[in-house]
């Protein structure tokens, strides 16, 4: 079930052994470059030493480590401008801090884009039943904030639920001169496709509901992303293999990108994300699902920690009706390429010239 001509790992690097169907958190020790692994082992050693000295000691120790790490993180460069050595250093630093913070071995992948890969996504709008499993899988896979206070709950995917049956007989006589006295159609009063706050967080008893259609959306990984253009510090950028990513350590939280995104794909961490230790997914990518901090923006990145290792994004894997397809657009044999060739395909808000790499289709 691997995506056709999947973005495979660098041959120079040890190939991770997980299969696509394996749960994300099952293999926390995905190997990385040897340099950082040595650093990691050292950190692990220090950690077990201190754990011998009791929990209190561990706490102080981890506090110091956290403080020192934060200090170093604060002055690190923009990820794109880092040399390989600096990247490895940042990686070790983060792995050490996250491991002590969450009490398990956390890996931070830094695999870069592979040549010849341009990721693409296609969604069969006809098949979606509105079960929202993709939403929950995404939250779990990508370490989103689970809080209950307003603003603490973050979901990258929304499945917009839309009423069917715009036109009804009982509305026929509405719309005769009213208000300003201009005649309008009786059925024109119900706005199409509008949602009230949080209406995409519906909890139906059974899906699909009879009188609803569904429209899942998330970051479209635009080829011409307006969010990238407006970022004053070039925190967010398009990777060579397609996804638009964010360097969480460099974002100043100005929220310009959120204003510019026509798909409402971005979320701001209003406060430190609520991420319970036991629910934290320890397989992370630097530009992907590693734990975020307060005051930065985040969004979907097509599960870089998975897709760069030749696996499907979590939402693709979990979709019970197979509405979601993912693969390499540059490979004519891939599933998405075939869909683009054969199906009826459209993109959202095409008039804005953002050229999404997220395609909707129906058959």
């Amino acid at each position: 079930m691997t995506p056709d001509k999947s973005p495979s790992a660098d041959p120079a690097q040890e190939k991770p052994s997980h299969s696509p169907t394996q749960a994300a958190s099952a293999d926390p020790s995905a190997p990385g470059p040897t340099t950082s692994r040595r650093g990691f082992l050292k950190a692990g050693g220090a950690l077990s030493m201190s754990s011998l000295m009791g929990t209190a000691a561990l706490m102080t120790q981890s506090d110091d480590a956290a403080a020192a790490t934060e200090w170093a993180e604060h002055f690190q460069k923009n990820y794109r401008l880092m040399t390989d050595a600096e990247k490895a250093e940042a990686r070790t630093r983060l792995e050490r801090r996250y491991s002590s913070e969450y009490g398990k071995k956390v890996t931070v992948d830094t695999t870069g884009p592979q040549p010849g890969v341009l990721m693409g996504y296609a969604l069969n709008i006809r098949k979606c039943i509105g079960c929202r499993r993709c939403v929950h899988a995404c939250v779990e896979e990508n370490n989103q904030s689970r809080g209950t206070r307003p603003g603490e709950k973050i979901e990258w995917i929304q499945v917009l639920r839309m009423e069917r049956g715009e036109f009804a007989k009982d509305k026929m006589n509405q719309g005769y001169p009213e208000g300003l006295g201009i005649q309008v159609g009786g059925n024109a009063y119900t706005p199409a496709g509008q949602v009230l706050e949080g209406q995409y967080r519906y909890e139906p008893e059974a899906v699909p509901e009879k009188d609803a259609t569904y429209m899942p959306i998330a970051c479209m990984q635009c080829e011409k992303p307006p969010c990238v253009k407006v970022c004053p510090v070039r925190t967010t950028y398009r990777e060579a293999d397609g996804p638009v990513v964010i360097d969480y350590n460099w974002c100043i939280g100005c929220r310009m990108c959120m204003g510019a995104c026509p798909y409402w794909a971005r979320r701001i961490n209003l406060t430190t994300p609520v991420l319970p230790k036991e629910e934290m997914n320890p397989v992370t990518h630097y530009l992907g699902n590693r734990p975020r901090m307060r005051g930065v923006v985040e969004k979907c990145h097509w599960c870089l920690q998975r897709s760069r290792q030749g696996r499907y994004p979590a939402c693709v894997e979990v979709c019970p009706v197979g509405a979601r397809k993912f693969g390499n657009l540059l490979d004519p044999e891939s599933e998405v390429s075939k869909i683009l060739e054969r199906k009826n395909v459209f993109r959202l808000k095409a008039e804005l010239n953002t050229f999404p790499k997220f395609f909707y289709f129906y058959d």
Partner: protein
Amino acid sequence: MQQLISFATDYSRYVLKGGTKFYTWMGSLGVLMLGMLYVFYLQNTEGLIVTGMTSQIHDGLYFANLVFLVGVAAGAVTIVFPAYAYHHEGMHKVAVLGEMLAITAVIMVMMFVFAHMGRPDRLWHMIPPWGIYSFSSMLGWDVMVLNGYLILNFVCGFYYLWCKYTGNPINNKWFLPLVYVAIVWALSIHTVTAFLISTMPSRPMWFHSMMPIRFITTAFAAGPALIILIFLIIRKNTKFWVDDSAIKLLTTIVTWCLGIAIFLTLSEVVVELYARTEHANGLYYLMFGLHGLTRLVPWFWSAVALMVGAFILFLMPSFRNDFKKLVIPCVMAFTGIWIEKGMGLIVPGFIPSPIGEVTEYYPSFVEVLLSLGIWAFGFFILTILLKGAIGILLGEIKYGGQAAAAK
């Protein structure tokens, strides 16, 4: 060097001298500033969750004030321009006061920028060589032109005061060109601020090219309205006399800029609401409410009433020429524009959101207190700058003057 030290000491000594009225004023501002420090601390430990902002409506009161104050800063040019380009006598005398106002407004804008950022501790990321400067980002340009404007006004204003203080003649060879650059620059700061929001096709309410000109006209109404008020206060409380001709000219500028602003707003309303496409939802929300949510409706109509009312009052000679009554339309225009250009423009830009979600925003107590504190801080510096400048213009602070008196 010695002159510089004595300038600083004379200046601060003069500013510190004051009656109970002065100290009560500064003291109450100080209390508000303490409140600001507390909530700013709170916001930077808890995060933006203490504000009313959400992922849907992520720019609120801070951004609204920021946009408005850039206008006030630009509005100072309505004094400098007639003074230097038209050699208006009354204006020339007070031009430096306008520059002081510009300095203050830009400092307040910077403070609102700090309040707005999710990670103000990382603002250095914008400053090369440590950070990255992005030429494609309007926010980057905005910060750059604002800082430039601050420097220009600081240099022009204080060089002028310095010359008055030491009695040296002004070196017009570089001073005048700098003043002209500052005049053009004033336009640029507000234009860039307008571009900051009008270059987002995802927000139809802002996405039109009328934004920059509307910004300039409202700025040239709100800025001078505030300046008139300040001048009237100065005339009442100090020995410094601002000429009638200066106030009259400013009144004319306010009136016609306000008139044009109302006209532009009206055009926008007609264009948007005639066809009433989906793109008009933001404006519709502002004017009448959407989906039963109506929080901003009273704001909008009060802004309309204030602006139109002020315009009518400005047209009436009995108000225009009576400096006691002039206060009323000035206050009305200033508040009206603050509402219209602040909350009335920024917030409905996010309602409905790009996916059609309709939600509302209310500033939290933290946001209100922080904004009040920044305004208080603004008035605090403005008082200091204006008092010192007036002292120099009056000749009460003079090089060697006080030293001689002390002996």
